[in-house]
């Protein structure tokens, strides 16, 4: 299924830490929902999200079907500098992939 809107990621330096906010664009079908014709919509959900700062891996998130539609995450990183590259990659259960990248401001 084509995904039209883009994944969004923001990173901001605050005092001694970096705040990262992520909004992915994904339908996250659990496999139990039905469409207008009362047919089951097959499962389609993000399973694995990895996040890097520069080239250091900082967080892995594994999602089940109970993650809401257009998943949102926010977390903090120790330290950080303006200009650090925060990079993210996700994979869903059907093998679709996406990446997002931003610089710390």
């Amino acid at each position, binding site marked *: 299924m084509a995904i039209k809107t883009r994944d969004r990621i923001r990173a901001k330096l605050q005092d001694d830490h970096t705040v990262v906010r992520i909004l992915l664009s994904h339908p996250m079908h*659990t496999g139990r929902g039905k469409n207008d014709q009362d047919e089951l919509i097959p499962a389609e959900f993000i399973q694995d999200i990895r996040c890097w*700062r520069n080239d*250091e891996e900082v967080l*892995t*998130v594994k*999602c089940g*079907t*109970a993650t809401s539609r257009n998943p949102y995450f*926010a977390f903090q990183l*120790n330290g950080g500098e303006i200009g650090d590259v925060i990079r993210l990659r996700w994979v869903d259960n059907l093998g679709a992939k996406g990446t997002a990248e931003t610089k710390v401001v």
Partner: protein
Amino acid sequence: MSDSFDEYRRKIIKQSISASTLALVAASGLITPRVLLAHWPQDAFNAETLEDAILTFLGEAEEVDEEAIQFTIGSPPTYAVNGASVPVEISSSLQNIQRVALLVEKNPFPLAMALEPTPAMRFPFKTMLKVAEDSEIIAMVRADDKLYRTSRYVEIDIGGCA
């Protein structure tokens, strides 16, 4: 037809059956799923009870009753209108966190999300979960081979597991 030829024919058939069976077993999925799903703990996410999910993902460890992990006040809320996106925020003062599990007790599959943080990451961690019905939302942390747990009962108006 001579007896020896018959015997030979039987042997050939037997061998070909066992060879094709092996090939079938190999192709039908003993090998492929391990490669494809190595990064996703399928057993834990498909566990249908809370205990199974916790045990599979976090393993067995001493459970400590401490205030080292908390939900933020109002996140998750004690009452949510729409179960399709219930905000959840966890904070923790612990160091050396190995794994974090977010669970919704009454969901068909209780394990909702699993984190593997590194020392570079720190809490609070915020996200949104689907909650099917009124249920306990649980956050569990494994740090220094001990389990820490916090939970909050959330009432839901419209179930969000469609």
